[in-house]
């Protein structure tokens, strides 16, 4: 694979990146690939803001009674961290970046079903982000990302409405993305691409889109009611007017629990792709993995009140939701077993994406098992609203979703940019991330079990050692995030050029150039057998894109 020297303008291959260069060709693009890049930039900025809030939180928690941050400001910080990370980073992350980029390519289409709607979706997202960031700059809001009433609807004296409206607007961005994916997968598959020939990433994106489309409107109406209550002094959730604060919790969690599946399902889809390609093996139990995505989506709608076990719901209600929560773990476990079976006797290459995939599997298992702990009614009484919960969901959302996102960005980086990143640095960053992450969040399990409540800006001195470990881990984790940012951007200018299929992976996206032309394919392909590694020719084993990597 020779490096492509710079040829004269008229000879250079036309890709979606050099189609046109003006700022308007980007801001008014309808190309799903360009929109994916626009999203990637936006969510990275949002991640940075949410991350800065986390840094301040961890600094405050270094000492038991720190004077670094006042109580009210602390409340605003964890609210900002939660809102930015959940609504403005994790929910969009994989769907709007990797999803937007890859869904048409993987099914052999020229674009999504509704390209203009896709662009509008990005603009709505930017407006929503700007509203929340503007709110934070104007003084912030302190209700927690969960906006519980009656505090959010009546008593908070900060800028709640603007924050709510920002999330509301971003919600429509999600809905339109999901709608686009559903119609695209139903109606725009290339000839011969039956449902059971779809890549597993597409199955995950489809299941995610179902949740996006059905759950997000409930959040929209719930937040709209809170906003109206604040503005007009009317009360659906105000007990003084006969309202019920618990109704808010039911309606809020009816969206927000499926939302966590929006955050993890795409990650699982990415891991399926990473594991199969880096092991050069047909996925074990393709059908099981595919349908487990749908099962997670469906059962996930039925577990919301496990966030409310101590809120005053009936014991019988608690039993039902506890049982459902145990059941929703089953399809996730099915995926883990299938990935493991795929790894077994695979031709494993320890590349950066593979490290991220393995990290995902281990950390997701820990996060998932501690979720079962929380689903058990008796245990939840003890650890509800403690750091145990925080550790649990960070294991899934950071150890799972963010790890998968990074793994996917690395894996498809050559396809998206036409450049290879230095894999040595990639592996170093992956290790640093894994180390930093575990040091940050494992002590939090212990903290929670010992009784430290969440959302507290001070704590009893006996908890200090774990908090210090956690903050130390956070500093390492931060470095782990900065590294990829550096070398990935470096590779854009100085990286080696990638050919069509540097990983020798199966999938239609690898059948076109890196980066692809605007119209994705010269001619619409006919659907191949999926994951046909047994019959593939591997072109890169001698000409290693990643020096030192051997397939076992």
């Amino acid at each position, binding site marked *: 694979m020779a490096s492509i020297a710079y040829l004269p303008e008229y000879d250079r291959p036309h890709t979606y990146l050099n189609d046109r260069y003006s700022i308007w060709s980007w801001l008014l693009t309808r190309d799903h690939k360009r929109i994916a890049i626009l999203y990637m930039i936006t969510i990275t900025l949002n991640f940075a803001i949410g991350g800065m809030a986390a840094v301040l939180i961890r600094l405050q928690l270094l000492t038991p009674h720190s004077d670094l941050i006042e109580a009210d400001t602390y409340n605003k910080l964890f609210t900002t961290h939660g809102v930015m990370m959940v609504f403005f980073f994790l929910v969009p992350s994989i769907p709007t970046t990797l999803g937007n980029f890859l869904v048409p390519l993987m099914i052999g289409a020229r674009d999504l079903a*509704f*390209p203009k709607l896709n662009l509008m979706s990005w603009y709505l997202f930017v407006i929503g982000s700007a509203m929340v960031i503007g709110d934070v700059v104007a003084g912030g809001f302190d209700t927690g990302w969960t906006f519980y009433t009656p505090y959010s609807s009546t008593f908070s004296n900060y800028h709640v409405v603007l924050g709510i409206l920002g999330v509301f607007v971003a919600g429509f961005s999600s809905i339109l993305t999901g709608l686009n994916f559903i119609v695209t997968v139903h*109606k725009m598959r290339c000839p011969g691409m039956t449902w059971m020939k779809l890549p597993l990433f597409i199955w995950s994106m489809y299941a995610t889109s179902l949740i996006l489309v059905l759950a*997000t409107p409930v959040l929209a109406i719930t937040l709209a009611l809170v906003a109206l209550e604040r503005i007009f002094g009317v009360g*659906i959730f105000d007990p003084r007017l*006969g309202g019920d604060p618990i109704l808010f919790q039911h309606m809020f969690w009816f969206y927000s629990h499926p939302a966590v599946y929006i955050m993890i399902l795409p990650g699982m889809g990415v891991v399926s792709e990473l594991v199969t390609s880096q092991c050069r093996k047909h996925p074990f139990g393709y059908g099981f993995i595919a349908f487990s995505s749908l099962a997670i989506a469906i059962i996930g709608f039925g577990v919301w009140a496990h966030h409310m076990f101590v809120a005053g719901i009936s014991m019988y209600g608690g039993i039902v939701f506890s049982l459902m929560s145990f059941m929703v773990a089953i399809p996730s476990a099915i995926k883990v077993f299938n990935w493991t079976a795929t790894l077994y006797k695979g031709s494993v290459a320890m590349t950066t994406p593979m490290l991220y995939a393995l990290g995902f599997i281990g950390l997701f298992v820990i996060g998932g098992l501690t979720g079962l702990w929380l689903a058990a009614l008796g245990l939840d009484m003890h650890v509800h609203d403690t750091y145990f919960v925080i550790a649990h969901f960070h294991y899934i959302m950071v150890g799972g979703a963010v790890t998968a996102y990074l793994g996917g960005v690395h894996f498809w980086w050559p396809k998206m940019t036409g450049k290879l990143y230095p894999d040595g640095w990639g592996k170093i960053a992956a290790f640093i991330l894994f180390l930093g992450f575990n040091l940050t969040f494992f002590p939090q399990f212990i903290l929670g079990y010992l009784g430290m409540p969440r959302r507290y800006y001070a704590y009893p001195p006996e908890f200090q050692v774990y908090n210090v470990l956690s903050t130390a881990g956070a500093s390492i984790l931060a470095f782990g995030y900065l590294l990829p940012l550096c070398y990935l951007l470096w590779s854009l200018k100085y990286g080696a050029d990638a050919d069509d299929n540097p990983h020798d992976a199966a999938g239609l996206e690898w059948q076109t150039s890196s980066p692809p032309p605007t119209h994705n394919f*010269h001619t619409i392909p006919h659907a191949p057998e999926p994951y046909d590694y047994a019959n593939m020719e591997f072109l890169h084993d001698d000409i290693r894109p990643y020096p030192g990597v051997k397939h076992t």
Partner: protein
Amino acid sequence: MSHSADAPLAVAEHPHDPLVAEQFEDLDQQHQAGTLGMWTFLATEVLFFGGMICGYVIYRHLYFEAWHQGSVVVDSFAFLGISAGGWNTAVLLTSSLTVALAVRAAQLGQHRVLVWMLILTMILGVGFLAIKASEYTHEYHEGVVPGWGFFNPDEHIRHDLEHAADQSGINPDLLHRQFQLFWCFYFFMTGTHALHMIIGLGLFTYLLVQALRHRFTPVKHAPVEIIGLYWHFVDLVWIFLFPLLYLIR
């Protein structure tokens, strides 16, 4: 979207119908995709309204007496012996008929009929909004618009409420608050519905303009069908709201 150097090959492979957007292979795929897109969007709207309706139904169960009183007041505003809600239902159902006729006209290429049906639908839509506006005005004068400092029901309504409190044994102050909650729901639900109607009127304006420019043919008239679907859905929401709000006894 600009064409890359590869485009000449692609175009030669596949001469593109100017009526079909670039991402679609043919008109049929475009039509199917658009229709599925609208159905999916309507599913999101079901969840959107469904959340509110679910809350309303829960409170109806908990606060039946107050809901009953609210419904009596809502239903009391009448023209010619039929409540405003009844007139609204008649108007909207007729507009769904005109929409269906418009779609049929588009499919058959009957240009004049299509234009008139679109105009008629819009007139009926505006009529609905006018009746709603008069209802809101009436309710404002009766003092039942909720909000701190706003909610101040008229004498006869207060009298009915006290009577109901006596009959049912509920604390009058509690009943008063529950009654206000009913009005919160009433205005949220009908207000959101009216907002969707206004959006629908905007969409029909677009359709009318396109129809006047002869853009719809028996082969290509998908927008009429798709926007027609949206209008039918808004009508369907009203079919749910009307019994829930007006007819509870």
